[in-house]
């Protein structure tokens, strides 16, 4: 079954003509059709099929990029030209982006195939995916449980193998936590590694995009495609990008892994502790050296986060005032000359945002 292949295996399969990008894409679109997890806000089937046909013709010519023809799911926080970009909010339900995010551009330029846009907590605020205007996402392992958030749709899509990988964004855990809750690999890269241009901002000094995949190897492959300097993002790091796949087959012998003791304090769930300890034992068996370290300031992380994130969020979200993007209730638009600015702002902000966002914005 094609959906059981990793991206590394799919790349080989496409190169060897075991299957075409169109077959691969159609297979995933069928799986999305039969999925009931609510992982997608928009499924872009027609565009995906066109992109797959284009990818196949490029593959046939032999001048394909490394990821040409590989399908993916894009978190609905990245602007995609001509396609709805909602950020999980009613506020942007009718927003068709006039431009592409740099990340969308980068993946398009490799002739990858976008299957659709994934569900998320509104404006990336939340850790359960229950704060989406488009309804909660279900965890594929147990549909009565949450998939985590805010990149919950992306995590559920990858875990249920209705997409080979998905993009995510992480401000305070929004890639890592849903990846963990859905049993996949998620990576928040160093700030500045991946361009934030065209990625709807929550807390700009913490926001960072990253890959959500099934294996570490796939994450390395995808990060290679995502990372890089972008002059359109003033906080983008102008540092050369190494090939993240080059060390994957090296032995772990002698590698030091630090375990911050503060992370193993009270409040750690017994089941989580057991799984982590199993992983530590596996690493030890492979030759890594486990060292206890101390990060004494960890305890201050959450209070600091709750100053930085809501302050930046408040500035970033004030642009959604109903004047630049058609959102406000239709009646208000007709009455525009007769109502005050206050009524418009309050009207659009109250009906466009859910409680969690309002609280963080105050």
């Amino acid at each position, binding site marked *: 079954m094609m959906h059981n292949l990793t991206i590394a295996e799919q790349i080989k399969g496409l190169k060897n003509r075991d299957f075409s990008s169109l077959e691969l894409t159609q297979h995933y679109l069928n799986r999305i059709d039969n999925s009931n997890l609510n992982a997608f806000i928009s499924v872009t089937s027609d565009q995906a099929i066109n992109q797959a046909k284009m990818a196949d013709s490029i593959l046939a010519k032999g001048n394909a990029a490394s990821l040409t023809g590989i399908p993916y799911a894009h978190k609905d926080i990245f602007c995609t030209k001509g396609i709805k970009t909602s950020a999980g909010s009613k506020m942007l339900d*009718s*927003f*068709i982006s*006039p*431009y592409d995010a740099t990340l969308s551009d980068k993946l398009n330029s490799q002739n990858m195939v976008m299957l659709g846009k994934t569900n998320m907590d509104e404006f990336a605020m939340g850790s359960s995916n229950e704060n989406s205007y488009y309804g909660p996402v279900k965890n594929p392992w147990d549909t009565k449980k949450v998939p985590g958030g805010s990149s919950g749709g992306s995590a559920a899509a990858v875990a249920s193998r209705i997409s080979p990988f998905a993009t995510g964004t992480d401000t305070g855990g929004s890639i890592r936590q849903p990846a963990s809750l859905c049993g996949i690999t998620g990576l928040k890269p*160093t*700030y*500045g590694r991946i361009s934030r241009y065209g990625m709807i901002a929550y807390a700009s000094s913490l926001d960072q995009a990253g890959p959500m995949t099934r294996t570490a190897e796939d994450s390395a492959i995808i990060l290679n495609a995502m990372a890089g300097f972008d*002059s*359109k993002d*003033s*906080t983008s*790091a*102008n*540092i050369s990008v190494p090939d993240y796949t080059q060390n994957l087959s090296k032995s772990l012998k002698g590698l030091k892994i630090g375990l911050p003791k503060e992370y193993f304090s009270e409040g750690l769930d017994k089941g989580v502790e057991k799984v982590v300890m199993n992983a530590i034992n596996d690493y030890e068996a492979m030759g890594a050296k486990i060292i206890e370290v101390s990060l004494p300031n960890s305890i*201050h992380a*959450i*209070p*600091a986060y*709750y*100053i930085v994130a*809501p302050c930046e969020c*408040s500035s970033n979200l004030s642009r959604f*005032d*109903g*004047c*630049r*993007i*058609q*959102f*406000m209730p239709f009646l208000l*638009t007709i009455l*525009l*000359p007769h*109502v*005050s*600015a*206050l009524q*418009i*702002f*309050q*009207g659009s*902000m*109250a009906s466009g945002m859910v*409680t969690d966002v*309002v*609280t963080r*914005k*105050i």
Partner: protein
Amino acid sequence: MSLDKNKVKEIAFLARLSIQDSELEQSTQELNNILGLMDQLGEIDTGDAEPMAHPLEMSQRLREDQVTEDDLSEEFHEIAPKTGNNHFLVPTVIE
């Protein structure tokens, strides 16, 4: 520091956010939780800590004052509720 419901209502008004009375209790409680977290930071001794502006020791990049972006004003005006003379039209803010 803690806020009462009237203060939260006032702040919401200043931020141009409308909060229903039914949500006021919860919002006040959540805000006070956040303020409680902030109080914890006041207890830290930061006397020896060096100020840090950026984890990668980067500074703000400057560029030549040249037009690099495509002009998408037409596309952006198309999705705006009301425009005129190449501007977004908004209701009167100052009477």
